[in-house]
């Protein structure tokens, strides 16, 4: 058992300080130490994408990074998407288009789409489909997810 190291991160705008063994996964640190339970762990080998977070603005698999590597980083998790008690347009679109069923992959899906629409506010359906293909969903068949992404893009363009 190695000594614990200090981990200082900013998550959803809030500064956190904790201590973690060097081998502790960032996903486990977020859940176990910070009790931010919105980030879900589905495979722990970087394929399912449920644990996707924004790490200094880039989407990463939090199960493929150690907590100690996150010191100094700014992180956004699913808990940070809605603001002032109001759903983000992406979340609204997911609700309107039935883009989630069990909701377990949804945090990773939302973060992925959040980043994608920042990069590409006016995507084609094919681009939207490809963007979400890094997150596995076993419930929906993806069709309604792609429809929601397209609807969210439109909502956000109108709002912008």
């Amino acid at each position, binding site marked *: *058992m190695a000594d614990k190291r200090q981990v200082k991160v900013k998550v959803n705008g809030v500064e956190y300080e904790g201590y973690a*063994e060097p*081998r*502790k996964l960032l996903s486990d640190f977020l*859940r*176990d130490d910070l*009790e*931010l*339970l*919105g*980030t*879900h*762990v*589905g*495979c*722990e*080998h970087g*394929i*399912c994408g*449920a644990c996707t977070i924004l790490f200094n603005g880039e989407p990463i698999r939090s199960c493929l990074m150690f907590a100690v590597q996150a010191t100094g980083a700014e992180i956004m*998790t*699913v*808990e940070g*998407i*809605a603001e002032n008690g109001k*759903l983000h347009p992406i*979340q609204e679109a*997911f*609700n*309107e*288009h*039935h883009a*989630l*069923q*069990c*909701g*377990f*992959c*949804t*945090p990773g899906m*939302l973060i992925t789409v959040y980043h994608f629409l920042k990069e590409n506010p006016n995507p084609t359906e094919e681009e939207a*489909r*490809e963007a*979400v*293909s*890094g997150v*596995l*969903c*076993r*419930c*929906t*068949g*993806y*069709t*309604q*997810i*792609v429809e929601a992404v397209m609807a969210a893009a439109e909502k956000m363009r109108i709002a912008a």
Partner: protein
Amino acid sequence: MSGEKKKWVGSSYKRKEDMRLLTGRGTFMDDILLPNMKHAAILRSPYAHAKILDVDISEALKAPGVIGVVTGEDVKKASKPYPCGVTIPTKYYTCAVDKVRFVGEPVAVVVADNRYLAEDALDLIEVDYDPLEAVVDIEKAIEPDAPVLHENIGSNIYNHRFFKYGTDWDTLCQEADEVVKWKFNFPKYAGSPIETYGVIASYSSFENSYVVYNNYQGPFVNHALTAMALGIPENKMRWIIPTDIGGGFGTKTGIYPYCALMSIVAKKTGVTVKWIEDRREHLLASATCTDRVTYIEAAVRKDGKILGLKDKAMDTTGGYIRPPEPGCAYRSTGNHTGAYDIRNLDREVYIVATNKGLTAPLRGYGCQELYFSTERITDMAAAKLGIDPAEIRFKNFVQPEQMPYTTATGGYYDVGNYPAAFQKCLDIVEYDKMREYQKKARAEGRLVGIGLASVVDPSVTNIAYVAIGKTIEERKNERDKSGSGEAAIVKVDPLGGITVICSTNPQGQGHETVISQIIADEFGVHPDEVVVDSVLDSSDRLYSITTGSFSSRFASSGTTAIVRASRQCIEKAKKIAAHLMKIKVEDVVMEEGKFFAKDKPEKAIKLRHIAGAAHWNQYDLPEGIDAGLFGTSLWTMPTSRPPDGKDRVNSSNTYGFVAEAIVVEVDQETGEITFLKWASVHDAGTILNPQIVRGQVLGSIVQAIGGSMYEEQAYDEHGQCLTASFADYLCPTAMEMPKVDVDHFESPSVLTALGSKGAGEGSSMSVPPAIGNAIADALAPLGVVVDELPLSPSKIWHMIDEAKAKTN
């Protein structure tokens, strides 16, 4: 009531569950944190078949943070083998005792301060194995010289039965113009929900009782069987299922052994133990469908009429057989002949032991295995007779005027119009036009195929089907079993708010939303005013052995229980209203949440005031009426009867219909499949929420694409599992999901309160044969025969390559 136009039911009311799930506030199994909770990790067998000579835990016990270790010996002392519905003496414990029989079987459990430390200690357990020869092939497993998994059984046959319905097979063959026969292989694949299994168990020595949090999806028969395995009364084992379950698909019916295992671990270590399965454990050792070998024959007349079927189905449930198996082979008994009017069936069933992972119901339970063989042989018969695959189906459908129709095997189809629903599917896909297109494409040397499937989708399992695993003689010595009960409590609080406590245990199907829609219609309130509590707690919820979400039960039996509980509550409210208004109960009318005398609608009393009277002034209630305002129901479908003396059983209770029409093109160079067009038409009875039903259908399609083309729990000849990560076990991504035109043909069930039938499993059953038929049709010019799944691009490429080599 069925088919009647409602205000809220039938609308795409947006899901209420989404608010918490979109904002990271769901409560899934791993989100439950209890005081002083410790963490378990499981040591699993690296061998498919081996004797356990010794398990040395001494070093593990000394490891940092370790609280205790439990082995198979402990489990043997603390529990009995699970009861199972077969006559052979099964010995399924939740942890290997003396011997391991599949890779991934639990061998020992470590409890430590955290999961990391528990996993560290697993490496320090020394297990002395004596490896034995393994058998993974179903047919090899029943050869006389095969290595035997269970010495006490003496062979690898868990179950073997013969059935005869109607005319003798040899006589039938004489009447037939052709007898078409083939052998099919169906693969072993899984639901692989993104949330894995999870259990938190604690034990109190003072009361000798257990509390077990877990994400089990039902059926709750396994709550009773787990209590039996632990040798305790059922009410001493409280199970709590959290609000949110991250997908089930049948796979999460396989959690219950871990509930027993972690209970034993909690008792031995004296701490509250949490175990969250990791993905490798899940892929190795959770549960898949059974893989099946089917030998099938169809006796057909020249005009396409199928006179009878003869089949021998051989399933393997892996290293052990456990409940609800042998359901894999018997759950589809009543709908064995599918959508066709076939009166003669000759059936043989084997359930076989092999050194592979264990099984559980998987979305479609047993029907995809069945229909892959029956729908493929139907196409083969059509080809042999030179008639169109659509035509042979029309020739054999049960006709609408035959409804209600009792199948040769005892299924009771209450309603349906299969020819019309099938025609709708053909129209959507533009069948005739696509046949023309195919002709042109073939002339250009392209491999275009059209695949059809038309199947009956059985929902709401009647638990009676399991008994079919035993002979009529054997059943005579046992008590009958039957039922499909589902529970609901509807209560109105002192301020008039309505809360529903459902026992349907959802895993993403939107029950909270649909229940709110139903209550809104029944009580004349807005769905947002209704609160639905979907936590399932065995100590304070109504439940029965059939409780849970499986076999698409919610839409039929769950909703009927909700309606019945609501109406019971409303009847009571009417009695109180009559008392308050000093009129007869018969004269009370309820409309849009208001109660009034039928001749004085202007003097209405609101539900809130009746609830007020029931709660706040309990003295002044009509004679014989209890205080409060609530209704309860544990409703079982009247069609859930035990099997009869001729092995006939109504194995489900509502029967929907699915027609699938798929147009594919196969790339000769790469084996890649492109879906050019796809129509999927469902008769799920009354549609309760179109958007949710669409999601269910699309979801079942993507899983069936997975099982038909990409997913397989694969083994080498030594029983080593080759697919223990998502890099090897390939789930479809968004890129693999084609555009599918989903449509409906509604024949409301006359058996359910709202006319609804199941919707979420139909395409799980129809897509594997439809894809098989489509690819077979595409490759037919090359002389390739399609008789197994999954049809991955590489497999197709090899098939094309072999066929070309033969002709050259």
